[in-house]
């Protein structure tokens, strides 16, 4: 049986305005959790706050500006969130950027940005969140990584490298701090139909953000440290991780 969700959990959400983050934030709002939204644009945050209020009357306690490209914004955004929420119980990070490998190979500036946002700065944000959660005696940190980090693969050499580093960090964090009450959840979405993947050719097992959100919510409730979503990607990545290198060198996925 599922453990009953704690009512009105206090949630800080970086990335609730779009894609899988939007879907997950709606589920949290419908359940009665209270959110503080972090993001880059005040107007966009206000629009998402309105949407979440329509999904759950008490859903949004506030918003704060936070930009994954500007690590200087992290501490102040989390402090503001802690102020409006009273305390932090769940921190979700679903923001990030993506670009296809061919594009990144011709654009070192974009590559530097992507590596900074998806790896370095995401870790710096998580460190700030970790300190605050531990100081309160624990909580849950749920971060969106990717199946792209599971194996060195041709189409995601750079993006995958950032996500591999992120997944690695999240696993270590879970090992190190779970005993102190900090549960770290690493979400590994496969291909999901969102604005980020619009225009890309969808592989088999492509998923919808709402399905991903339901899986992630269940993992949050249960404290599962690792979630593949859609679920079929766990098996797919199991096979891909087992393939010998000479095969990976030949295939294009």
């Amino acid at each position, binding site marked *: 049986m599922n453990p009953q969700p704690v009512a009105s959990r206090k949630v800080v959400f970086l990335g609730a*305005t*779009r*894609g899988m983050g*939007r879907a997950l934030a709606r589920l949290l709002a419908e359940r009665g959790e209270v959110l503080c939204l972090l993001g880059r644009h005040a107007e966009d945050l206000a*629009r*998402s706050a*309105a*949407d979440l*209020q*329509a*999904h759950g009357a008490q859903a949004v306690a506030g918003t704060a500006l936070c930009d994954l490209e500007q690590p200087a914004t992290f501490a102040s955004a989390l402090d503001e969130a802690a102020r409006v929420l009273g305390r932090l119980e769940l921190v979700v990070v679903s923001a990030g950027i993506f670009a296809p490998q061919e594009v990144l190979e011709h654009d070192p500036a974009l590559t530097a940005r992507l590596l900074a946002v998806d790896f370095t700065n995401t870790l710096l944000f998580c460190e700030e969140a970790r300190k605050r959660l531990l100081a309160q005696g624990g909580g849950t940190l749920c971060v969106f990584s990717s199946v792209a980090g599971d194996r060195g693969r041709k189409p995601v050499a750079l993006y995958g490298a950032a996500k591999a580093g992120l997944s690695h960090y999240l696993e270590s964090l879970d090992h190190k701090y779970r005993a102190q009450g900090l549960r770290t959840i690493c979400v590994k979405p496969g291909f999901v139909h*969102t*604005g980020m993947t*619009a*225009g890309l050719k969808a592989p088999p097992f492509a998923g919808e953000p709402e399905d991903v959100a339901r899986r992630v919510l269940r993992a949050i409730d249960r404290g599962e440290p690792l979630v593949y979503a859609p679920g079929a990607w766990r098996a797919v990545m199991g096979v891909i991780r087992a393939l010998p290198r000479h095969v990976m060198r030949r295939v294009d996925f």
Partner: protein
Amino acid sequence: MRAAQESRIAGWGRLSVPGRELLSEALEPLTEQAVLTRGLGRSYGDASLPPPSRREVAATPLADRILSFDEATGRLRAEAGLSLGAINQLLLPRRWCSPTLPGTQFITLGGMVAADVHDKSHHRAGSFGRHVQRLRMRVADGRILECSPTEHEDLFWATVGGMGLTGHILEVELSLQRIPSPWIWQESERVPNIDAYVEALEQAAQRWPYTVGWIDCLSRGRNLGRGVLLCGRWAEAHEAPPAAPAPKHKLTVPFELPSWALSRPTVQAFNEVYYWSHQPRRKQGLVHPESFFHPLDAVLRWNRIYGRRGFTQYQCVLPRRAGRGAARRFLELLSARGGASFLCVIKDCGEQGQGLLSFPMPGISIALDIAVRDDTQQLVDTLNELVIAEGGRIYLAKDAFTRADHFRAMERRLEAWLAVRRRWDPELRLRSALSVRLFGDPP
């Protein structure tokens, strides 16, 4: 290596052209250069397809945020890509419903405005545009503005039913309807032929907010147009179960069926079973709102049953002044032409809305799904000639085959609509495959 396949874009009838959707959560930048914006692509024909010289169409489904909802008044404002299904799921349990609930819930607010959709309550509630208060639009010159029945009203009423050709719809504000419970009380009745049917429909319309019917258009002679009439209303709180209806489980048609799957004998067999399985002749009871309003949504991708060549829906309205015999004349012509329609839906339409190209007018609406065959163009031409003679018109959201001169002959308001469109878009920057076909736009 395989050659890269050219991507194609299609309406619900699966007739496709080269092209693709551009999706984004942010409609303002997305629509800056777009020739056309589409929603969930549920119009059957070419309304949501690009003109031949362009490949890309902006698509709204990711822009689906509710921007405000007033629980006291039912006033809702949302981004244009919010779907009716999402509104139903969120707000039916809170006893608010969309003022218009058409045959599918897989449509967006923007699409509902663009087609000025109607439903089974048209004889009472009118079409969707009547309940829309404001629109936020990007017009052809690039400006973003608000329009309403009192502000840029020419643009507003040309956009309601204007098939997305007067500007890109970014946000929609409308009034929802209060309902006593989220369940439907339904009464249904088997009716032996088309004349009895039309009479039963007219009588039911006096007593019921929602009326609709299915008819068997393959039956002939005495049985011509036999069918099942459905009437419904929202159940009162004391009649309804305490729990809100859960979303219904959906099946999916996994692949394209061969084109003989829907042939005359199979459709005939289906109709026979459907008609006689309605036992007793008259039934009543509580039903799930999805079964009542959106029965075909239970099967995802059902358009695949029409095979590779796809299908078209022919929907027309025959005006009341053409008399009760008009529906019989229509079915006799269809029957003489051997038109085999799997689905034939008949509804009552009330007053014409203010949308300049809005489809409904007082009379009877008939909708048929027709598998595309070599003679489909001739069949549509023949039906259109009858509709013109009866003083009716066709529904652009369904159409793929009507000729420009036929549309002109059935749509006296066209010049007025074209004039507004010219005022807001003199260079015809917004175009679609439909506007090229019917209005002679440059490709």
